[in-house]
């Protein structure tokens, strides 16, 4: 008898294949497969499987079996309302790794946040990450540092201190005036090589998602994209990087165990903004850029500022979003009227975009924009998971749908089960009445 794979549960992550001391496991067509001739029933794969897809055959009792059974029981009873980081930590406690990291071990220290400065503005996610970075640095017991790459950076340096950086690494050079992958990757990689941070974070923005893969490739280390939860395992001190996977249908916690630095991009507007303390000071470390303009093979020709709807969707405070339930492009007018009275922005689901009612840059969700407005009003949206992952962190959600079982009601603070063509104009009137009479404080 050998280890049993539950194919319905196996996610094909391969953790068991790496763990198996006798190379009895392999991935075949994305699923773990056991070679019964090699398997010794040692149970080590059972312990590492994140999906609880492996079990030892009946009667093959060992200490590993008992541990894993206990762990399995725990995971099976996984409670959706349980706070994430704790449950994430629970698992990692049982899967400690003995091997040291490839390069240097203890040399790698410090949490770094790459501060995105573009067109004279800092992307707010940079400050959000200094807030989150503070927690991580405290959990490890190391420094929190900011990295600013660009041109004319002095005003940004003091801001980085105000938002909590203890040290700021600066590469200030005319070649870095506009963002381009080559010189930015060069500057960041050189800093990493020289100062060896343990963790390097950046926003999952167009810039972060462009330059970080280049940096991670140069460093030959792991990079986790689009994280929504970060925490430090209390025992291993490894960074636990949690992100949506399979189109947001599951959450996956990812680690980079043996290589450094541990790198992650983090979704904007997921982490809380830290307090800004004017006048805070810290150490400034300046480095030269190791590449000249002649060596850069990309040039920025011009910049065309976007129109309001594409710029503001992820920054909008009030969003009125439509799904296929709105019925037609013309019917969007009633949503527009509600948006107008609230000063909101119109957005929609992938379905509404694919129907040609809205443009692609108005799409909220997995393949569109992630939004976190103060108020999200969902009209005729069923609430597919791909849509929910893009809006469920909104502060307050109102949903109107005629299907009482629509998934959107699971995330809505208030859901009105009804005909949106009657309810929405009524809401518009109500808001108009109150706002005109100055009821709003």
């Amino acid at each position: 008898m050998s280890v049993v794979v539950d194919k319905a549960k196996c996610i094909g992550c391969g953790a068991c294949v790496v763990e198996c001391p006798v190379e009895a496991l392999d991935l075949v067509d994305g699923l773990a497969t056991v070679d019964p001739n090699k398997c010794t029933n040692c149970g080590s794969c059972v312990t590492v499987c994140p999906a609880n897809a492996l079990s030892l055959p009946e009667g093959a009792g060992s200490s590993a079996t008992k541990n894993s059974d206990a762990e399995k029981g725990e995971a099976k009873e996984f409670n959706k309302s349980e706070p994430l980081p704790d449950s994430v930590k629970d698992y990692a406690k049982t899967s400690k790794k003995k091997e040291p990291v490839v390069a240097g071990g203890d040399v790698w220290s410090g949490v770094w946040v790459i501060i995105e400065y573009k067109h004279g503005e800092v992307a707010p996610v940079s400050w959000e990450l200094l807030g989150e970075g503070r927690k991580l640095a405290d959990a490890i017991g190391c420094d929190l540092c900011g990295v600013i790459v660009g041109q004319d950076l002095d005003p940004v340096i003091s801001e980085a201190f105000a938002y909590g950086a203890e040290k700021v690494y600066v590469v200030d050079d005319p070649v870095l005036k506009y963002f381009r992958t080559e010189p930015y990757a060069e500057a960041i990689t050189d800093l990493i090589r020289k100062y060896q941070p343990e963790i390097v974070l950046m926003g999952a923005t167009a810039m972060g998602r462009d330059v970080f893969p280049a940096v991670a490739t140069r460093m030959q280390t792991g990079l986790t994209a689009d994280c929504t939860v970060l925490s430090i395992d209390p025992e291993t001190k490894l960074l636990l990087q949690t992100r949506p996977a399979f189109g947001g249908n599951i959450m996956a916690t990812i680690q980079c165990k043996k290589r450094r630095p541990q790198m992650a991009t983090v979704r904007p507007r997921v982490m809380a903004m830290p307090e800004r303390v004017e006048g805070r000071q810290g150490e400034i470390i300046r480095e030269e850029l190791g590449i000249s303009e002649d060596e850069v093979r990309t040039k920025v020709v011009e910049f065309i500022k976007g129109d309001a709807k594409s710029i503001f969707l992820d920054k909008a405070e009030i969003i009125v979003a439509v799904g296929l339930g709105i019925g037609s492009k013309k019917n969007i007018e009633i949503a527009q009227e509600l948006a107008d009275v609230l000063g909101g922005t119109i957005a929609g689901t992938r379905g509404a975009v694919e129907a040609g009612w809205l443009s692609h840059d108005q799409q909220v969700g997995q393949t569109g924009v992630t939004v976190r407005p103060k108020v999200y009003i969902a009209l005729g949206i069923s609430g597919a998971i791909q849509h929910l992952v893009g809006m469920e962190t909104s502060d307050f959600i109102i949903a109107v749908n005629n299907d009482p079982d629509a998934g959107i009601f699971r995330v809505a603070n208030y859901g009105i089960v009804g005909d949106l063509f009657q309810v929405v104009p009524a809401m518009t009137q109500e808001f108009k009445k109150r706002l005109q009479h100055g009821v709003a404080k």
Partner: protein
Amino acid sequence: MHFLVCLKQVPDTSEVRIDPATNTLMREGVPSIINPYDAHALEEAIRLKEKVGGKVTIISMGPPQAKEALKKAMSFGADRAILLSDRAFAGSDSLATAYVLTVAIQKVHESDPVDLVFTGKEAIDGDTAQTGPGIAQRLGFPQLTYAIKVRDLNDGWVTVERKTEAGREVAKAMLPALITVEKELNELRYASLPNMMKAAKYEPEYWEAKSLPYDTTQLGLKGSPTSVVRIFPPPARSGGDKIDGMKDPQGAAAMVVEKMFQQNIIMTHPLAKGGKH
């Protein structure tokens, strides 16, 4: 010009569901499709070939079934398709995947130099957007990501419009270069009948790990620095009050609006600020 497109066969994630009883992914019967962003990358390569002449080569890493995606891609007018398939590649993260693809591209490049590599901005099953830039780094090509328009291709430079948060950036890169693309880049074509017939007979080249000079420590799970340690369902947000608006839509609307004011949800009214948008 030699255009090379990296293409991935993916499950149609909009069809993937979680089994509520077991909390596991229900993958049975989920159709496989060409990653939508890659389809637009392919479309652009074919358009450029039609404009300036040359050929289009497609490379994909995947299980043997991914052959179907390559045949489909051929029906749109590509000239050559290579499937990298080997159990040694299985479990590769984005770093290892970029390595697998790069070594294969280098082999193609040796005998038939590549001018422009296209990839989708990301694959819809992983959404990492890391493989394209990873390949560019390893090849030593400059990269332009999130292209929404190819403006110009001449004199050894390619000029594109890139999508960024603040607007469109027009940027150019010296060839050979790598471009990752958005869906807005172009409209997909339908396969022509002659191309469909050609594709039906076409068999993609099948390259295994041993046919290329791989450092095996960089492949698959062993070559992947990241590993998944846990999966779980997304945290459910608990639903709030459900109000019946069937019988009395006016009343339901008024009640919700009332509550929003009571709870100061609508407090700093945008109109008071002069309207932001």
